[in-house]
């Protein structure tokens, strides 16, 4: 770099010694003009001069948000809830299939949970005018769906008679994985206000219908499908309003769900229970930690060289 500078300094004219002193004095007193970021005049600096204003308009990470561990863990609780619900559902099916499910207890607990859940939904939900009309509409929809499931239960029981067990288990695994991947976690975390996950809901209902078709009696099928409707279609609404109402309740609910699921898995297989425990620990605490470790690599550079963005683009 200094080589280019000395080339320019060397270019001078020969002067008689008397005038040289005065010239030197003048030059010493004359300050060097500041460097300007322009190309049309000759400046007293070499071509590779780097001014202290170099990169002064660069903006780094203007839109990036640094997230805290608590914030990320809290957001991950909705994924844990969904996972617990799916695993709980599978465990209930396992017991129903092996006829080890105490049916009367199950129906009673479910009914209490539905009523309690509905009351909590009405209490926690914001912007809800509790009028007789609203409750009547809710109950009407509820009864229509339950009545249709009751009516169709005998048909659904023989739906997959020609398909082998292995296909059903494989298909169900795949469908519930899809359900987990495409669920509307933004809604469940209270970030959005509209529940829009038709793909995941369809996958869950499809999975539960083909699982139900493996059961032995019509009543079993009805109870099972009612349970699946309650868990996959109605519980997201309740969980959304709980999360929006209070973060502590959300954590409490997640812990309760996890404990319940864990307790029920233990009745089947201890190894699976331990795996479930570690998997949930990874999702709820491990992945926030890894995201925070990756945050330091985030580099979003903006500056005057960026392509300008036009508001109205004609297409």
């Amino acid at each position, binding site marked *: *770099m200094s*080589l*280019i500078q000395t*080339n320019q300094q060397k270019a001078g004219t020969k002067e008689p010694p008397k005038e040289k002193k005065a010239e030197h004095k003048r030059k010493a*007193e*004359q*300050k060097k*003009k*500041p460097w*300007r*970021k*322009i*190309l*049309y*005049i*000759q400046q007293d600096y*070499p*071509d*590779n001069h*780097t001014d202290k204003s*170099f*990169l002064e308009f*660069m903006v780094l990470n203007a839109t990036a948000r640094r997230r805290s561990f608590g914030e990320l863990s809290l957001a991950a609780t909705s994924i844990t809830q969904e996972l617990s619900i799916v695993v709980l559902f599978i465990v209930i099916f396992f017991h129903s299939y092996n006829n080890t499910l105490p049916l009367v207890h199950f129906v009673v607990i479910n009914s209490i949970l539905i009523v309690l859940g509905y009351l909590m939904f009405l209490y926690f939900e914001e912007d809800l005018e509790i009028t007789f009309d609203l409750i009547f509409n809710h109950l009407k929809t509820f009864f229509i769906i339950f009545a249709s499931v009751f009516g169709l239960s005998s048909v659904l029981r023989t739906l997959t008679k020609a398909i082998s067990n292995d296909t059903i288990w494989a298909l169900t695994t795949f469908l519930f994985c899809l359900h987990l991947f495409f669920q509307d976690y933004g809604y469940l975390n209270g970030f959005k206000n509209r529940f829009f996950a038709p793909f995941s809901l369809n996958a869950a209902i499809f999975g539960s219908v083909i699982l139900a078709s493996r059961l032995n009696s019509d009543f079993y099928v009805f109870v099972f499908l009612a349970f699946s409707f309650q868990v996959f279609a109605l519980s997201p609404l309740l969980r959304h309003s709980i999360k929006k109402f209070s973060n502590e309740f959300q954590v409490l609910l997640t812990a309760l769900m996890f404990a319940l699921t864990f307790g029920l898995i233990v009745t089947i297989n201890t190894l699976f229970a331990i795996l479930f425990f570690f998997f949930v620990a990874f999702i709820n605490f491990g992945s926030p930690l890894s995201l925070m470790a990756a945050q330091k690599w985030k580099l*979003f*550079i903006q*500056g*005057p*060289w*960026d*392509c*300008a*963005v*036009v*508001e*109205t*683009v*004609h297409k």
Partner: protein
Amino acid sequence: MKQEIEITLEDIENEELVQIPKRKSILTGKYLKKPKKSYRIAMITDFFYPSVGGVETHIFQLSQCLIKRGHKVIVITHQYGDRNGIRFMTNGLKVYYIPKLRAPDKSSFPTVWNNTPILRDIFLRERIMIVHGHQEISVLAHEGVLNARELGIKAVFTEHSLFGFNEIHYILVNKGLMYSLLDGVHLICVSNTTKENAVLRTALSPYLVSVIPNATDFSRFTPDPTQSDPNWITIVSITRLMYRKGVDLMVDLIPIVCRAVPNVRFIIGGDGPKRVFIEMMIEKYDLQDRVKLLGFVKHENVPKVLVQGNIFLNTSLTESFCIAILEAVSCGLYVVATKVGGVPEVLPNYMISFAKPNPEELAQKLIEATEKCKDVDPYFFHKEVREMYDWHDIAERTEKVYDDMMLQPERPLFEKLRYHSRGGTWGALLNKLIFMLRLIWLFILEVCFPREQIHYAVDFPTDKFLKMKKKKLNN
């Protein structure tokens, strides 16, 4: 009494008070002095004649000026259809059209081993001292620079455009340039904004980056006040009609300006995918007599179109150094442009006015410009811009870069390996492995086609040719 002459930044901004010091070399003609040492330079790129464009003109003009200063210049590019082998252009400029597969966007396909034999042969038979690659998206330039560095030949790279950081194609292109510039290659950028952008993209030391602007052939762009219609204020815009050139802004601002100023008309030259929106706008606002669409304008006819105007409009969304506005000012037009990229550095305040890239502000500046352009003296503008940018000056500054490059010592191989330690543990290992493999390939080539057996090419007798040309002109 000590008299301190203090010139603050504010004084300089107010350019009417301070005399603008022009480039001494252009005014006094001192650039015609013979350089200290004459070099043998190879310009290598994918973009050259017969394809026409900014980069092609840049390389051709720069080569011509360097030849006139006494250097020997050759150009290496890929074949264009039937055009392959060696051709000679003006003043003995030798052009090698080497066989290389062309990619859709005028560049070529990247290879690792294929071009080393032929490039090595060309560099050795022409006794090349400096390899000068142009334009980042040209794959051949990267290959040339890489091969030169491995052979121990000095290399310089010129960057003509701005690139982003976010998308995958930008990331790939940036990494490619970073790899090419690893081994002490000097980078020349066409504006200060391009320098900032290049330093960020390639993690290069800013002292290895010089800023040398472009120029254009001002003798072709002379003002002709007789061509412009005195009844109208004509706004000219010649550009490819695509998103990057800000056609959406043009479509929105033309109705505003036509409504505000009754005697203004637009001439739009150029073609592209967004042309249909301009035609739709003309129909919607009934501006058939106010807006004229010329379609594709050939490069020879551009001056004829420009002299018909009073104002030049440039609505680009990204521009590293806009040569179009230089051509416009050379024809005596006042310029209104969007403040993006390197455009604010090119012209002084009395020749250009800037606006943010939104239609309302651009329309406002255009309306103000319709008043300003009445005071403009086209011949004064032409003379001024001629003194600002000159190809001979650019050649002299490029030569200084070459001088600096030649003074740098050539490092031994072991030290060169150190340059490849970027990219983390595994990336560095991979880079070093590739470097070693390439050295083995060079060794094989050296065994099969030894240096001693390569006949030196006969140089074109440039001195005698130029003298003969001068004699003929004088007679």
